[in-house]
């Protein structure tokens, strides 16, 4: 019987043949923490009583969740991270550099075939560039920081094939929301997902990262894709590491297979308070919004900003709407400025905030008032996620968010399809 991508990458890092269900100790190629998790990483690392990190080139800390700091408590966490980075001479991306899940692949820390752990649940993002990457807690990460290893249970894999040409105004975000609706928020718990199909092949790497980013929203450990020419070019341009692309065997064993035809898919929207509570945009045209947000590790990349800017160009957002934009990294911010996108955003009434997580985690940059409604390109709409349990969050593509900001209610971006 052949092997899945997950079985192969974990076998390569354990130095022995592994199958789903096996438990093994594996070598980890890269690991990191962010400002919501690094404080406990540091505490747990110190408790281990080990005096140095396993490899100072394979660990980074990223300040992105609450950056710049909104209060004293967070400032103390940031200070603790900076002190640790200096003491142990490890790398750090400080405020304004961007979101961890943009920086880790963009800065070339990972390449195809790597095994990566991050103390953040959306670490599954780099599955799109053929990396077995998954989120863990802080203490798990501290163990890896000390030893370069961790234990893994080899997951079963669900094979998802996405076929068909996406209609204008419909994007990879709509595809993953559609899949989340079908599979459900725990449909892939403990499992890996492999994504295939002609709809995926024609997507840019940016668009694919959006899909893998949300694998955890269906419970998955990682959302893997094969490394085609596009991926290899993308990683080679960014990383000095040699890619080790891993493909699944034709006779690999899958726990389930799903096939989707997206040629007639309409823009999808996840309603409060669950990511799998998904409707067609056309069913929600009565929903008024108070805030729009384009950004995050899901949809804060250049392509996402370009799509939103195309819709906003030359127009003003609805007077009752606050629109926040957070580029996913400093480099994207600069590129967006060069291309005139930042000017479009500011002129249309948007507030552009520092590269980072923005208001996604509810600590700053646009906390909602009681009863307020937000439409966001993020990946979670849990009650209270954006800082107020008495507010409501809808999730959609950058196009749907921009279209909605113009009208003040949830709107179909296909009305702007001539611009897209």
């Amino acid at each position, binding site marked *: 019987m052949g092997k899945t991508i997950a079985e192969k990458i974990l076998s390569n890092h354990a130095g022995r043949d592994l199958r789903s269900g096996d*438990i093994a*100790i594996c070598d980890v190629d890269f690991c990191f923490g962010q400002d*919501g*998790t690094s*404080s*406990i990483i540091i505490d*747990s690392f110190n*408790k*281990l*009583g080990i005096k140095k990190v396993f490899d100072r080139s394979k660990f980074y800390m990223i300040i992105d*969740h*609450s950056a710049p700091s909104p*209060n004293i*408590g*967070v400032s*103390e*966490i940031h200070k603790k991270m900076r002190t640790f980075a200096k003491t142990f001479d490890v790398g750090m991306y400080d405020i304004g550099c961007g979101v961890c899940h943009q920086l880790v692949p963009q800065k070339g820390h990972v390449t195809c075939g790597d095994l990566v752990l991050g*103390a*953040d*649940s959306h670490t599954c993002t780099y599955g799109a560039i053929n990396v077995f990457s998954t*989120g*863990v*807690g*802080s*203490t*798990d990460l*501290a*163990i890896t920081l*000390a*030893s370069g*290893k961790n*234990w893994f*249970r080899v997951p079963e894999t669900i094979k998802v094939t996405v076929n068909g040409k996406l209609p204008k105004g419909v994007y990879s975000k709509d595809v993953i929301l559609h899949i989340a609706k079908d599979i459900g*928020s*725990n449909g892939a*718990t*403990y499992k890996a997902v492999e994504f295939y199909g002609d709809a995926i092949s024609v997507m840019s790497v940016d668009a694919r990262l959006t899909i893998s980013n949300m694998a*955890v929203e269906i*419970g998955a*450990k990682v959302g893997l894709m094969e490394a085609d020419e596009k991926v290899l070019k993308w990683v080679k341009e960014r990383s000095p590491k040699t890619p080790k692309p891993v493909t699944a065997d034709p006779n690999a064993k899958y726990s389930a297979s799903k096939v989707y035809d997206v040629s007639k898919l309409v823009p999808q929207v996840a309603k409060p308070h*669950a990511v799998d509570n998904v409707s067609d945009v056309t069913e929600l045209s009565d929903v008024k919004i108070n805030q729009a947000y384009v950004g995050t590790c899901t949809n804060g990349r250049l392509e996402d900003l370009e799509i939103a800017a195309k819709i906003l160009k030359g127009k003003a957002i609805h007077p009752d709407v606050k629109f926040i934009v957070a580029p996913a990294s400093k480099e994207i911010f600069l590129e967006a400025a060069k291309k005139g996108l930042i000017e479009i955003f500011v002129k249309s009434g948007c507030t552009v905030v520092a590269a980072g997580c923005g208001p996604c*985690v*509810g*600590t700053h940059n646009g906390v909602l008032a009681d009863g307020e409604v937000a439409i966001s390109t993020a990946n*979670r709409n*849990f*009650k*209270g*996620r954006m*800082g107020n*349990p008495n507010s409501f969050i809808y999730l959609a593509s950058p196009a749907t968010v921009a279209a909605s900001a113009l009208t003040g209610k949830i709107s179909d971006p296909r009305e702007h399809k001539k611009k897209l």
Partner: protein
Amino acid sequence: MKHYARRLKVQDNINTDYVISGRYKFKIQDPKELAKYIFQDIDPEFAARVTKGDVLVAGENFGCGSSREQAPQALKQAGFYAVAAKSFARIFYRNAFNIGLLLVECDTDFIDDGDEIELDIEKGKLKDKAKGLVFDIKPVPSVMKKLLEDGGVVEHFKKYGGFKFD
């Protein structure tokens, strides 16, 4: 010590944002202080009802979402001896055992708030003494048992100088 069930009003898909909101986890560093704010967004009176040794009772996919270790830590500090749920999300599952909090997977439909609970991990049974019902617990993997016996992954690592699972 006697253990009593503390059943959440909402049972399924309790994410770690609900266990402990981002509003508090960034502000409060002391886990004991953090424990006062568990389930604030879905059941604000819940935290005050927890007493030491209680067993938290939930449904499917408990602990989904964010990887925040503050979630199991706050439950442990609140006094919970264990969490019993129909299923758990994977990051939470690892985090809980890593810090020495016991999780058991079993049918929880018939366990009411306040029922006295007995747990026997070796035999794989959860007994609801108030109802006289006994439920099978899905076997706790040997790795998890070992971590729990050693008092969490940090203690395990210190004891053996690395992982030792066989």
